[in-house]
């Protein structure tokens, strides 16, 4: 793991430079943004399509309330519509439509960041462990730990669904609290319930809104069925729910020594659920939603977190908007839900080891695999995955955060830039091994080897994620540093250069280093010749400690 001292030092250095460069105007970006209409929830071209109302929290000169840490109180929301996003649509749009659009559009930096590159608290996000150290108890508590379903009283099954493999129930406990009760796949006990709970705790500590998730044990006689309860089969057809049906669903489930079944109980989120949020555009019926989602740093940076936890199913459908009322003001809160497909779990089975390394549709890799007659063997194929109860196929040997892939493209992930990666890397670096172990223990693994393994793997993954984030940030920040330095001392005040933003590096950006280089060269050709990063450090005679740190980082 990265020590806090290292992280603070690195963060300070990089932040200072990023801040200095970020204080200018991004006129190009503004112009682009102003030409775009509010996207609503529709999915127009994604990158650079800032809403006309879009707020760039850090853009422009200093304001008296900079850096802004908390967004203003939300306006009241009325007449919101429940949104549904189809699985197939999301897959098709994100896999085939959005990437093509992104190719031709100008990219913009994240917009909801303050002048020190952080994300202000809002209905989307709250600064937690990265900014204020949470205690181990707080980390274990996550979104809440005081309201698990009452283990000694009956649970009334309100409804159920079964996709033919793993049923789920909606239950109400004796206190009137409602939960979604999800069973583990019968052949893989503890697999998805542990992943779901651990994921929720970590994401909460990272700052996201999450539901309260619990690992629970229950006896068969605790489940009662009301006469009007229905269950829905995988075709969506509803049937009357009977005791016999529940018995059948539980028939293959393993039981502990006390005869209890294990499940994950996710407490219903407060407020009225109004469907998932889109990963790009804004909600046209929410006045508080003024930053296009693809330009939200917490959604872009989520790529680092998702990679770290192998949360391959991070997508719109695993989010939820809820209409809540606080102090008499109704507004929308945005939640991340469902981590059943994180760590080594894929909800219904251990995760296919390909997941996280390739998109489902990945033509180049697929062609290579096909043409090589199977002799092309990437590292993840050669890695040993220990068979420990509940851990599935979670490993760290093959983990490559830079080349990590969700199941299919997600717009904010595709738009993540160096600054977003750096922001996320800092958050990951903030966790110590003890804190990671505390998270893993909330998964309720019965085999201590599982706790050790998942802790080790997540710890190693955290280090790699942080390194990759810092590596990306380093490339960007050295440029920023140079620009800042040059502007204060030797920046030539020619018309050409003066009209260009000092944060032009935040302009059009390609994902490959080779593709980025010509753009920087273009600037140097116009304004001045930039030295290579190594030259800068030689010139500035960086102290040995910093050099060592940089060597380690890069």
């Amino acid at each position: 793991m990265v020590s806090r001292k290292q992280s603070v030092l690195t963060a300070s250095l990089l932040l200072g430079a990023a801040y200095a460069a970020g204080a200018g105007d991004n006129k190009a970006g503004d112009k682009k943004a102003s030409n775009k209409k509010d996207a609503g929830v529709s999915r127009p071209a994604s990158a650079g399509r800032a809403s006309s109302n879009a707020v760039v929290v850090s853009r422009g000169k200093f304001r008296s309330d900079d850096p802004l840490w908390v967004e203003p109180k939300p306006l009241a929301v009325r007449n919101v519509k429940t949104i549904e996003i189809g699985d197939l649509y999301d897959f098709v749009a994100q896999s085939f439509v959005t990437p093509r659009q992104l190719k031709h559009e100008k990219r913009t930096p994240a917009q909801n960041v303050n002048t020190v590159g952080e994300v202000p608290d809002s209905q989307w996000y709250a600064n937690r462990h990265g900014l204020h150290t949470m205690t181990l108890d707080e980390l274990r508590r996550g979104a809440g730990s005081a309201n698990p379903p009452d283990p000694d009283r009956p649970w009334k099954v309100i409804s159920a669904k079964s996709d033919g493999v793993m049923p789920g129930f909606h239950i109400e406990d004796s206190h009137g609290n409602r939960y979604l009760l999800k069973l583990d796949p019968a052949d893989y006990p503890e697999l998805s319930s542990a992943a779901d709970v651990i994921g929720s705790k970590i994401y909460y500590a990272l700052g996201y809104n999450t539901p309260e998730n619990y690992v629970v044990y229950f006896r068969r006689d605790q489940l009662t069925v009301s006469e009007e309860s229905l269950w829905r089969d995988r075709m969506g057809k509803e049937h009357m729910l009977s005791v016999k049906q529940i018995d059948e669903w539980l028939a293959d489930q393993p039981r502990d020594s006390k005869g209890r079944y294990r499940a994950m109980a996710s407490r219903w989120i407060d407020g009225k659920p109004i469907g998932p949020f889109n990963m790009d555009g804004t909600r046209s019926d929410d006045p508080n939603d003024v930053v296009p989602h693809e330009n939200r740093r917490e959604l872009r940076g989520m790529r680092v977190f998702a990679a770290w936890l192998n949360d391959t199913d991070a997508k719109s459908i695993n989010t939820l908007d809820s209409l809540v009322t606080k102090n008499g003001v109704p507004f929308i809160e945005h939640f991340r839900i469902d981590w059943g497909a994180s760590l080594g779990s894929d909800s219904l089975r251990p995760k296919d080891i390909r997941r996280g390394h390739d998109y489902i549709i990945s033509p180049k890799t697929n062609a290579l695999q096909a043409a090589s007659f199977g002799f092309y063997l990437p590292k993840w194929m050669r890695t040993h995955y220990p068979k420990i109860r509940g851990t599935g196929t979670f490993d760290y040997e093959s983990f490559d955060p830079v080349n990590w892939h969700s199941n299919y493209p997600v717009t904010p992930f595709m738009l993540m830039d160096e600054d977003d990666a750096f922001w996320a890397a800092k958050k990951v670096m903030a966790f110590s091994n003890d804190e990671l172990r505390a998270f893993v223990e909330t998964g309720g693994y019965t085999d201590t080897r599982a706790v050790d393994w998942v802790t080790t793997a997540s710890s190693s993954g955290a280090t790699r994620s942080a390194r990759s984030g810092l590596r990306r940030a380093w490339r960007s920040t050295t440029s920023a540093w140079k620009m800042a330095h040059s502007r204060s001392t030797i920046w030539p005040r020619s018309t050409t250069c003066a009209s260009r933003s000092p944060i032009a590096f935040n302009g059009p950006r390609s994902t490959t280093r080779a593709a980025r280089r010509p753009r920087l060269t273009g600037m140097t050709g116009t304004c001045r010749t930039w030295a290579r990063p190594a030259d800068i450090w030689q010139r500035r005679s960086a102290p040995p400690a910093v050099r060592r740190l940089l060597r380690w980082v890069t």
Partner: protein
Amino acid sequence: MQWNKLGLAIAVLSTGPVWAQDSTRTDEIESARAKKEQKLSSPRDPGLERAIGGIQGSWAYRFLTSTDGLGLGFGEMIPGAGFSTGPRYSKTLLDGRLRLTGYLRSSTKRYYTGGIQGSLTHLWNGHAALDFSADHFDYPQMPYYGPGSESRKTGRSDYRLEKTETQIHPALRPVKGLTLGLLGGFQAINVGPGTASEYISSDHQYTPAQAPGIEQQTDYLTGGGFVQFDWRDRPGDPTEGGKYRAEYTKFSDLDAGRYSFYQLNLDASEYIPFFNGKRVIALHGRTSLSDTRNSQQIPFYMQPTLGGADDLRGYRPFRFYDDNSVLVQAEYRWEASGVVELALFADGGNVFHDWSQWNLRHLETDYGFGIRFKGDTGVHFRLDTGFSHEGFQIWFRVNNPF
């Protein structure tokens, strides 16, 4: 830390003087929100989503894809029948424990089939099941090349095979993977001249001595049992484990009194994974051994056959007929993606008249390659191309060969 401070100092200085602003950042955000509040609108689904939703919600889509209710079915006919499709109706009863399916199929070569199938599962806490079916099919161009492995490709003839059969299979599953079951049924069979204009009818080409039963058909009462052990990880697309089955059936001639026989079918599949199951060696062996008593004969249309999409893939469908058969297959399968798998395969097999001729030395062989498109539950369809000394065959099927 000095460098840290210096960096910050440079950063701050480089931004120039910090001017007090008239508006705050909060004002700016509130202004943007207020502006948006003036033009709120109800969210609209994107065009693509509306289009996909429209397709998925359409009657035609449901008809094509539904597995419950009325729908359209494809395939599930014998190799060589051509493209086949037809209506299918499925209904789940008894809280999901009984599933009934009725179907009709017609192919481009005018093969017809139809029937009702039922499956009663989850009996006795999931330890018992009962399958039953009543089917009728009419295959007007069944190929017949003569008996034995010495038959010639040029000896192709065809005949019509009509069969009406009912079957019932009660089964017990005492432990996971192990199934013990009984087989019972009735078959009414009619054989006649084939309808293919390019081939001679089998009754003109082969004598009753060469093709027993060609001049007289009979009905059968069947009974037997089977034992099966299945420990494959995913039955629809296995990468690990195996499946072993032994089945013994008595076919009792009800009419002619000279075509009764016994048949033992042994079938074994083994899947050897490597590189975390992304590469698999799949092995399959099958033998059908028939026995007759008291000078009884096995009608040619009841004999085991080889050649087709699932066995000797480099040969035409039903290329070899005889009383007994043996088949060995091996495939090397490698995943190109999560949904595409490729395979290199080799098949060897033979038919023979007497048990004593059983051997693995003189096999008809073929080899080839295939591509399979998979989903979560298994192979959706595959395209295999097999090569043999008789030419090549291309197979489009909706299952794994084994």
